[in-house]
């Protein structure tokens, strides 16, 4: 890997952490509070015990996928461009897998966790899940996609090493058209 790629990777990870752990909560709390607030749903409680843990686990998932991607592309020695291109479906598979994983994380911390334990996330309420409104779900899914872009696509497009560096979708347009 080139020094510039190390810097890009480090920067992307730092930006990703800042985004997931600081900015995202701030945006949910201050810009879109109306979309998440519903009957019986306390936004602060939900951010603390619902979305934040879900996005934290999702962040770990993205970092794990990133490590696997970099270890694969750093150690492989493809002899042809065809072998390089054959890795592209793997990237898409990882991305789709991460989206599904993100949705599962949100579902777990919003619904299933409470149903499995038989407890209610809202004190004094009978419902054993966070009643997130439909608009809130769309917002959360949007954040999963944004997180995927920030945590997986951006570092892979900017820092994928060796002959794999243009295999990530968009890399040719961004870096290779000069």
């Amino acid at each position, binding site marked *: 890997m080139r020094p510039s790629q190390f810097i890009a990777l480090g920067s992307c990870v730092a930006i990703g952490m800042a985004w997931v752990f600081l900015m995202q909560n701030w945006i949910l709390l201050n810009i879109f509070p109306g979309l998440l607030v519903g009957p019986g749903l306390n936004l602060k409680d939900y951010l603390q015990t619902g979305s934040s843990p879900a996005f934290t686990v999702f962040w770990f998932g993205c970092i794990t996928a990133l490590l696997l991607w970099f270890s694969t592309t750093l150690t492989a020695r493809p002899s042809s461009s065809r072998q*390089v291109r054959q890795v592209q479906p793997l990237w898409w598979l990882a991305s789709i897998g991460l989206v599904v994983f993100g949705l599962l994380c949100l579902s777990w911390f919003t619904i299933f966790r409470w149903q499995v334990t038989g407890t209610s996330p809202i004190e004094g309420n009978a419902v054993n899940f966070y009643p997130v409104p439909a608009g809130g779900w769309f917002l959360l899914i949007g954040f999963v996609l944004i997180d995927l872009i920030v945590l997986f696509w951006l570092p892979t497009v900017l820092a994928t090493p*060796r002959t794999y560096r*243009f295999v990530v979708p968009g890399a040719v347009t961004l870096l290779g058209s000069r």
Partner: protein
Amino acid sequence: MKHIFAIGVGGTGAKCLEALVHLHACGLLSDPDGQPARLGVFLVEPDQQSALLARAQTAISRYETMQRAIGRGADYFARGELCNYGTWSPLATSSGAISLDQVFPKAVLRTQAPGVAALFDCLFPPEEQTADLDVGFRGRPPIGSAVMSRISLEKEAQVGQWQRMLVDIQTAAENSESTLIHLFGSVFGGTGASGVPTLGQLIKDWLTRQGRNSVKVQASLLLPYFDFEGAANEDTGVHAESRSFQLNTNAALQYLSSRGISCFDHVFLIGSDIKARYGFSIGGMSQSNAAHLVELLAALGLRHPTQNSNAYAHVLSRAQSQVVTWQDLPDDELVGNGLARGARFAVAWRHNFSREIDEAQKLSMRSFLSGAPWVRRFFSPHNSGGNHAGRPGIRDNTQLSIQSSINQYTDTLLQWLNQISSNVGSGFKQELFTPSLLAPADQLANNLHKIVQGKARPRRSENSDTVEAIKVAMDWLPEDQITHPGMAGLADCLWLLVA
């Protein structure tokens, strides 16, 4: 600039010129400043159907075509200029005569000079007098000497290939301090044994008459290094026999020790006690003897510095009896690096880069680029095909013809390297190259580490000695280090990085 005029006489001489062309391609014929020499090549062979001659001509014309196609498009790769003077047959001067009794018409001799006719009968038995010489001098130096001695260089200098070469020799001698004429041929066969000393003497006399004594005349003389497998049949007629090789050699060396100084300023004598085995052939297209290391060593004689040496004859030996290594080659450091670079380049180009370019013809540029970031350093990253920032399209016909010329030359180089590293004789081995890695392969080559053996192998880890590592390096090279775009630029860059 150093000017070298190489003359290959006979089949072995042609094979030596083939080796010389490959040395030239590997950048091993340079002046002391590193400036590539200008190499002129001239083949002398009565057997115009000779497969050995055809092979040498193929190597020469392919290098010439490649060099012309690349032109000024490369700074390092294929920089050595080559001038091909073509092929000349000593029988061409004998008004279509193809046998000795036609070269020296016996009927005329009998009436005008009966004594000479009797001497002719005494020197040459009837079967030698009537043997067709269009397959060469049939391993008989006396036949060759009789034909060769009739050559008049003054007359030949008026027309054709000789004229072109002799004019160039004169021009080079006027303009350059370093002009060299080097002859190659065997001393144990027919054409070389008779032709090399005769032509050496003719050229030396001609230079003296022209007042060009600064031009040195040298020769690499090949002593027996192969035997024939199988034998001739009754219909073969006069033919070369391996049992005569030693006798022919002794006679040639005796001649050389008494008259050699009048033919050559220096000679290089090289043979092998361990003989390669070739199938018997009278000559012509069936004589397809594989290239041999001895021919490379003979060609390397040309690199030997002789300016400050009074020695006349130079010989070479190896350190171990059953194996030849890089240390056995003269100037092994430079020669090893040059040949190693050539072999690694040929494998990387022919078995990887060229196939990648073929693959690029079937895909959109965007799709190909996604797996080959290096390609945009030399070719336009767009499909349109036109120039982009000075870089041509990868489907540009001019670029594809350069690719084809490099392919053809590298095929020849790989075949030659494969043969010199596998055709070593029984009980003998070489530790220069790995022949199997030089052979054509379906798989794309990636690992370059094992192509070269021994001390000429580049000092880098096996894991990083790959074509992929070269592609990565190409991708990240600073802008100012890629001075030429297109196919020639790619080959030039590969030539630099593969070393």
